[in-house]
């Protein structure tokens, strides 16, 4: 098949520009996965449970943005509201349901999966199972070095970086972060030292939920709103956390970056159907030889 470009083409989509464009697209998708994995990773690393409803928290963030925008307010107002609303939902669910599961991580997986299912099907009912577009607050493309760059994707890359740095500083450089880590490392000793692990877990879970809400709000203009928005990222998120290693902040983030970049970059090189499988095969092979993940062992 004639895959080579025709000479004298209308748009200058060749060589250097094409490569730069590829790099940007791959980076921006990597950023999206990191953003989605961030909250999941923090809950997994700081609380020792894997939140299977994380994808649905992302969905709730997207849905909140859609509702606020639908009410006639600007999209960015929805994006600001989303983390707050989802954090509130996360807090209520943690108090009512999740806290009963801390002693049994497997039951926690099943329990959170069930919660996710309820949220997902409720949202599906509310939006009639449709796919609904939500506009970006910043529309259009920039031309940087001859390459068309979507302004909103660029904004996502920047916001992800800021949120990542912010979360890292919060967990490693503040006294709150210290208490969170203490509650994970040795709950009995933490309690004996006057830290309410109960409250710490609630706050950590709420924080993870807020990050999921933010992720949902930011990605909904890219992927549109639909009930399975969250589940799409669940497996990728799970593999990212596994690949990165549980127990640190950096692990899941690094795992998310690797999975995101590989998912977007491999289709440039090999057949897309093969690329999808290859991401998981490579991740599994890696974990086989390094079971702790990329950044293992050290719990801060």
């Amino acid at each position, binding site marked *: *098949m*004639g*895959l080579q*470009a*025709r000479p004298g*083409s*209308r*748009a200058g*989509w*060749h060589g250097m520009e*094409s490569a730069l*464009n*590829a790099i940007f*697209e*791959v980076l921006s*998708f990597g950023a999206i996965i990191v953003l989605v994995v961030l909250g999941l990773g923090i809950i997994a690393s700081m609380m020792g449970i894997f939140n299977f409803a994380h994808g649905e928290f992302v969905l709730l963030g997207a849905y909140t943005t859609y509702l606020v925008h639908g009410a006639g307010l600007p999209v960015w107002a929805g994006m600001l509201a989303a983390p707050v609303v989802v954090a509130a939902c996360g807090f209520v669910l943690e108090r009512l349901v999740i806290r009963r599961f801390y002693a*049994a*991580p*497997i*039951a926690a*997986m099943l329990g959170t999966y069930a919660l996710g299912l309820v949220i997902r*099907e409720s949202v*599906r009912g509310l939006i*009639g*199972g*449709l*796919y*609904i*577009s939500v*506009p970006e607050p910043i529309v259009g*493309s920039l031309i940087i070095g001859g390459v*068309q760059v*979507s302004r909103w994707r660029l904004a996502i890359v920047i916001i992800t970086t800021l949120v990542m740095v912010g979360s890292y500083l919060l967990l490693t450089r503040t006294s709150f972060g210290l208490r969170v880590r203490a509650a994970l490392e040795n709950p009995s000793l933490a309690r004996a030292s006057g830290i309410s692990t109960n409250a710490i877990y609630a706050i950590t879970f709420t924080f993870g939920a807020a990050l999921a809400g933010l992720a949902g709000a930011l990605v909904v203009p*890219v*992927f*549109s709103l*639909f*009930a*399975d*928005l969250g589940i*799409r990222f669940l497996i990728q998120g799970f593999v990212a956390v*596994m690949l990165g290693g549980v127990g640190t902040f950096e692990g899941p983030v690094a795992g998310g970056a690797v999975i995101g970049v590989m*998912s*977007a970059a491999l*289709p*440039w090189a090999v*057949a*897309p*159907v093969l690329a*999808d499988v290859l991401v998981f095969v490579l991740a599994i092979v890696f974990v086989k030889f390094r079971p702790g993940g990329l950044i293992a062992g050290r719990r801060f």
Partner: protein
Amino acid sequence: MDAGSGYRDAAPMISRRRFLRSAVWAGGAITTGIGSWVIRPEWASAAGPIKVGIATDLTGAAGYAGNADANVAKMVVKDINNAGGILGRPVELFIEDTASNESIAVGNVRKLVQRDKVDVVLGGITSSMRNAIKDVIVTRGKTLYIYPQQYEGRECTSYIFCSGPTPAQQCDDLIPWLIKNGGKRFALPSANYVWPHATNEYVRKIIEKNGGEVIFEEYYPPDQVEYSATVNKIMTNNVDVVFNTVIPPGVGPFFKQLYEAGFGKRGGRLSCIYYDEGALAINAAHEIEGLATCLDYFRVLTKEDPVSARIQAEYDREFPGGALFAAGSAATGMYRGLKLWEAAVKEAGKLDRDAVAGALDHAKIAEGPGGPAEMVPGKHHCKMKMYTAVAKEGNYEIVGRSEGLVDPKAC
């Protein structure tokens, strides 16, 4: 992660009381049946009701279509009952959720056929769903099956009738239009499952017959949402027409990325043959401006066709705000299927499967969404009017229509 060993560790923690409590709960849920609905007629006859079974995806990914189909069935059956039923008997509607999941579907459809003993089953959205449930209905269940969705054709099993359009009906007029109003260089980006594969095989032939060329035909995992590599290939190869069979959730981000890369701006033409009114909401209107599609019905036809206007108005009145009455979600095929079956039963004068199938083989309806329809004898498929439409500022504009009823060219 070793879930198995975790389970074993957790096992002793389950007390007998807790086990019994769960077992009672689960038992209750199983016996009452999940996802079953019966809509009884308001009147009765001595011979008892005629039973119509609907097996469709009320939940899961295809829920938007399944709910529309169930709504249409409720509407048509209500109309039939209000007009005196069929053969003097009322119609009772049995709805089962196939949940966009073939393994759940098989069990639920078995309930329709074996427990409820329905006289006909209509439903299934995806081809994989049709393939999963057809044997349960037709071979083991000895029941008639009508499949309402637009699809790849080729379903020629006895006792299965299809009331949605085939690739021939959707593409024979559309492809020449695309070549004239877009260009000769086609890209066929596709989701990797049976419908896109079979459709592309047909489309490629029509493109080449009309002097066009296929620059690339490429398949992606059905849930892929990142298409930068594909967009780059389309841009660098100066593709004129993107004939898309990528499905949701990927189609939204894909069209958005194409728009951002400037495909539309440089004169590229998008086309997608399952795109109906519901699909317009997936992207912002400017991102898919000029997208061309070809289906058996568009809402805009209500302005010129009083029958379409009446059906659309009735649906909107009874089911406001929910799933849309649109061709791409099989809603029009469901309407046509039920009405053709009604005509066949009336002609046969009984519900015997062979008698009804014999009458259905040449059944006709004078009124339906988009126009009349008739079964092509011996072909299991339906002739119907087809319309080519283009997306303009978030609505469709009809740019071409078939002369009379189009042959499905199937079987």
